[in-house]
């Protein structure tokens, strides 16, 4: 039963992934991404990662997706009449060849490296309880991974400052300094 559900969810993930890449409108692309996140959360749950599935839904579907949709609405990117101005698909031969080459290398590595269990999968004691107990994760995260954890908080702070600095509305007099002061070698620009 769980196996059938896994293959259904895997097919759904791939279908939504194709939707992300092939959608004409950014809004449809981002909504497909949301579907892919939900399917992946289901796969995590089936594979025994309950905490990761919850985190996936909270952070990806909850926070990142809202950010994407907010920017799309803010910049009015959902307007079909404006679509052409925002770039379409560049199907160059070199791009396709590069993507195909990377996919081929990945498939080759997978075929060579992937472990093939000789015996069928028989659930052990570890398998039955799931693979990411919250208590166990917390114990490791706050002891062995303490330094990366602190670095992560620093990264979040830096991101917050960077986002505010980037998205802040600039004052008009600071908007385009090139138009006010020219470089010495530029002609026809007030210096």
């Amino acid at each position, binding site marked *: 039963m769980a196996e059938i559900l896994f293959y259904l969810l895997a097919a759904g993930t*791939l279908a939504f992934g194709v939707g*992300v890449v092939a959608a004409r409108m950014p809004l449809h692309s981002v909504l497909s991404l949301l579907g892919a996140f939900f399917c992946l959360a289901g796969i995590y749950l089936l*594979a025994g990662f309950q905490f990761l599935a919850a985190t996936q839904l909270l952070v990806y579907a909850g926070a*990142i997706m809202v950010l994407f949709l907010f920017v799309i609405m803010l910049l009015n990117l959902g307007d079909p009449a404006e679509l052409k101005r925002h770039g379409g698909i*560049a199907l160059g031969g070199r791009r396709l060849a590069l993507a195909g080459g990377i996919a081929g290398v*990945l498939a080759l590595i997978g075929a060579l490296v992937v472990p093939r269990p000789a015996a069928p999968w028989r659930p052990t004691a570890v398998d039955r309880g799931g693979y990411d107990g919250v208590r166990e994760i917390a114990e490791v995260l706050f002891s062995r991974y303490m330094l990366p954890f602190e670095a992560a908080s620093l990264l979040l702070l830096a991101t*917050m400052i960077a*986002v505010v600095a980037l998205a802040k509305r600039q004052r008009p007099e600071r908007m385009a300094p090139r138009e006010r002061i020219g470089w010495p070698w530029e002609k026809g620009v007030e210096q």
Partner: protein
Amino acid sequence: MTVPTAHLFVLAALLFALGILGFLVRRNVIIVLASIELMLNAANLTFLAASRQWSHATGRLDLDGPIFALFVILVAACEAAVGLALVIALYRIKKTVALDAASDLKG
């Protein structure tokens, strides 16, 4: 679930290839960012599949995989926030989010 780890790896590889394709082929910044998120998710799936296989093989709970996946999710959140702020800045200057418009540094 008794699905072999190889199938999880194959799913992750296909997802990553889709993300690469979208990243290289699409010209809309929002869709390019969505493709990057797809690739990060494929990496997460690989971490978890490998961790599951390792736990199963050794009989001891392996927590490095889930914790790395957690950090990947954190970095993905930061990347999305900064990327979308850059999109807003790009739109303010160029009035478009087409990547072809941002070629001033192309040389």
